[in-house]
């Protein structure tokens, strides 16, 4: 049906050459009118701190030494970008982002399949059960994971003592790699439901008739998954990945509670926090924040341009 209503001009528009049709233009106008006020408010609320941070990042400015404030132009950025601490934190942040998003995607997809296929009478219960971790406040979940793994109060060492390395004397938060495992596990546990929810929406959009046709043609489960289901929900998968990657890149609460960045578990958000809030170095801290902001913009940009994620969805 939809193809018959498409006008020739919009077809040319898809190639990026011809002018917009009246209908598209009207739709766009409506879109602006609906989203405009919210966009304006968002701009007002976010622009001020962003501009302020950009401005502050050009100064050597310590909150407790207001008289020593001096303009240093890009010196703070140079200090940050050439510092091994920054590079280490960037590495940790990227590692956490890549590992958690990849694992969450696989787990989330499996859970979405379960939610999609479970028989109707159990559907509500299963969905609620899967979504519970997502409903828990991050700080609360961070404390729960911390106490579970803590060498003094934790039960994990007791329960999993039969595994190699793990034993009553194993201190999970005593070194970087094991701390990161706990941090990432808690992050995955907490946000997989979010991904599975987005994927479930994508799964619901896969046309049933396509799957049925493939089945009739003799395609197996894997073939249908690869050839029909996954291609049809590419937009949903990419939206889920981008949202989660942007989220994971800004990880703060879990690390703040569990290790406070000790033994090389610090991420960029924590570095920004420690520099501007704890050290009260407003200039240097703002520079870290601006760099973090640029990193997030880059991820969004790469996702949009390179992977061609269409956040407006549905139209592609």
């Amino acid at each position, binding site marked *: 049906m939809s193809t018959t209503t498409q006008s020739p001009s919009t077809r040319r528009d898809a190639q990026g050459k011809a002018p917009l049709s009246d209908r598209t233009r009207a739709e766009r106008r409506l879109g602006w009118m609906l989203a405009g006020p919210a966009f304006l408010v968002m701009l007002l609320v976010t622009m001020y701190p962003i501009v302020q941070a950009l401005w502050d990042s050009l100064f*050597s400015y310590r*909150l*407790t*030494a*207001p*008289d020593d404030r001096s303009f240093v132009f890009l010196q703070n950025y140079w*200090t*940050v970008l050439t*510092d091994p*601490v*920054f590079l280490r934190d960037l590495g940790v942040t990227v590692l956490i982002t890549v590992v958690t998003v990849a694992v969450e995607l696989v787990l989330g997809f499996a859970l979405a399949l379960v939610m999609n296929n479970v028989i109707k009478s159990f559907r509500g219960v299963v969905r609620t059960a899967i979504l519970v971790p997502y409903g828990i406040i991050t700080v609360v979940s961070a404390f729960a994971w911390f106490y579970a793994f*803590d*060498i*003094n109060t934790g039960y994990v060492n007791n329960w999993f003592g039969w595994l190699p390395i793990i034993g*009553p*004397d*194993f*201190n999970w*938060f*005593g*070194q970087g790699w094991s701390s990161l495992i706990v941090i990432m596990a808690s992050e995955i546990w907490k946000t997989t439901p979010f991904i599975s929810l987005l994927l479930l929406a994508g799964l619901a959009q896969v046309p049933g008739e396509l799957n049925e046709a493939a089945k009739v043609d003799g395609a197996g489960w894997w073939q249908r998954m690869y050839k029909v289901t996954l291609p049809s929900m590419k937009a949903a998968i990419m939206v889920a990945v981008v949202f989660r990657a942007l989220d994971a890149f800004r990880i703060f609460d879990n690390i703040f509670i569990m290790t*406070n960045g*000790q*033994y090389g578990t610090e991420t960029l958000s924590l*570095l920004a926090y*420690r*520099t501007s*809030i*704890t*050290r*009260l170095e407003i200039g*240097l801290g703002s520079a*870290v924040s601006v760099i973090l902001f640029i990193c997030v913009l880059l991820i969004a940009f790469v996702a949009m341009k390179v992977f061609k994620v269409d956040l407006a969805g549905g139209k592609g």
Partner: protein
Amino acid sequence: MTAKPHRRALRAVAVAAVGAFVMAGCASDDGGPVQLTWYINPDAGGQAELAKQCSDASNGAYNISTSLLPRDAASQREQLARRLAAGDTTMDIMSLDPPFIPELAEPGFLATPPSDLIDRTTSDTLEGAAAGAQWNGEYVTVPFWANTQLLFYRKSVAEAAGLDMSKPVTWDEIMDAAESQDKYLGVQGIQGESMTVWVNGLIESAGGSIVEGDAASVDGLSINLDSEEGKKAAEIVGGIGERGLGGPGISSQDENAAMAQFQGDKGSFMVNWPFIYSATAAAVEEGSVDQSVLDDIGWTTWPEVDKGTESAPPLGGINLGVGADSQHQEEAWDAIECITTPENQAQYMVSNGNPAASSAAYDDPAVREAFPMYQTIRDSLDMAAPRPQTPYYNEVSSGIQETWTPINEVNENTPAESEEFIMSVLNGESLL
């Protein structure tokens, strides 16, 4: 029709709210009591009680309300520094942790206390506590309570190891004793403020000082970790780490975790704040710790680094300061004088477990009953040395925490690396 009464009610509420706000702001101008705000660190309710007592005793001159600061000292500093830097006029009385006082005093965020008030409130202040309340040799705050670390030990372990605890012992002796008895030593190996407390205590006890020179400016101060005293400190910290004397959880062990280990079967010696005694007593009452453990606990002053040289135990506590932008400084100082009387300090010590800064408070029979180790605390407070007093304390402390943990990696190169790292952070060349 239905909307009107609703709107009228809303308007009435708004008018009442604005009226109340305006009246509250004017209260002190019409001769009522001045409203003072006291920013307090969390405790067992003792400061709120003192606020009430002193408000009542002021005969309507002022009324103190308390405002709670975050739980840990570093977050308290963050909030206070931000409020003071923003010119908050409600900073009438503040409970301040001594290491952060220079940072707030140097830019003029703290009001100068009247000299006659200092004479009256500090005449019998214990030496360590007095040092912690000053900046550049002048009192900028009034000592309220003072904390110090003691060496707690299990009498049975010390006896089995043949250690005579009636005389001061050294770090080497307790390390050997714990090792010979196959027990763990209670120290704080977590990457946190307690690490600085420990390292500073070791260096001060060895006769050194972490910060030297003109501590007020980055150009004037020098970090003195790469010294004989620093190396000795690294030898002790690294030795405990390397020999595994701190137990398996040492890298994340704070004061409470050390206490839990000390109460267990592997407990031997522990440096910690006196609160652990009342906490253990409470645990006995609750039934989670056996009475025999409490009876087995002995205490003495902090271990010596060099045999025969008196140690310089860590100092903590809270001093009271007044914000430079406070609108009611005169009343605030009056209130502070009331809060810090030796009687009130004794009351606070008994009810909240925080040792008094005033020597006279220890003569109170109630204090002596609640703290059997009162004499050791008093002696320790006289010997105690404050942590580095500089506006850049946070950088110095974080730098030490970063480089002296995990303790099993501390070696003879650590002091030099630590010194270099802190200096480059102070010069704005490195991130922390």
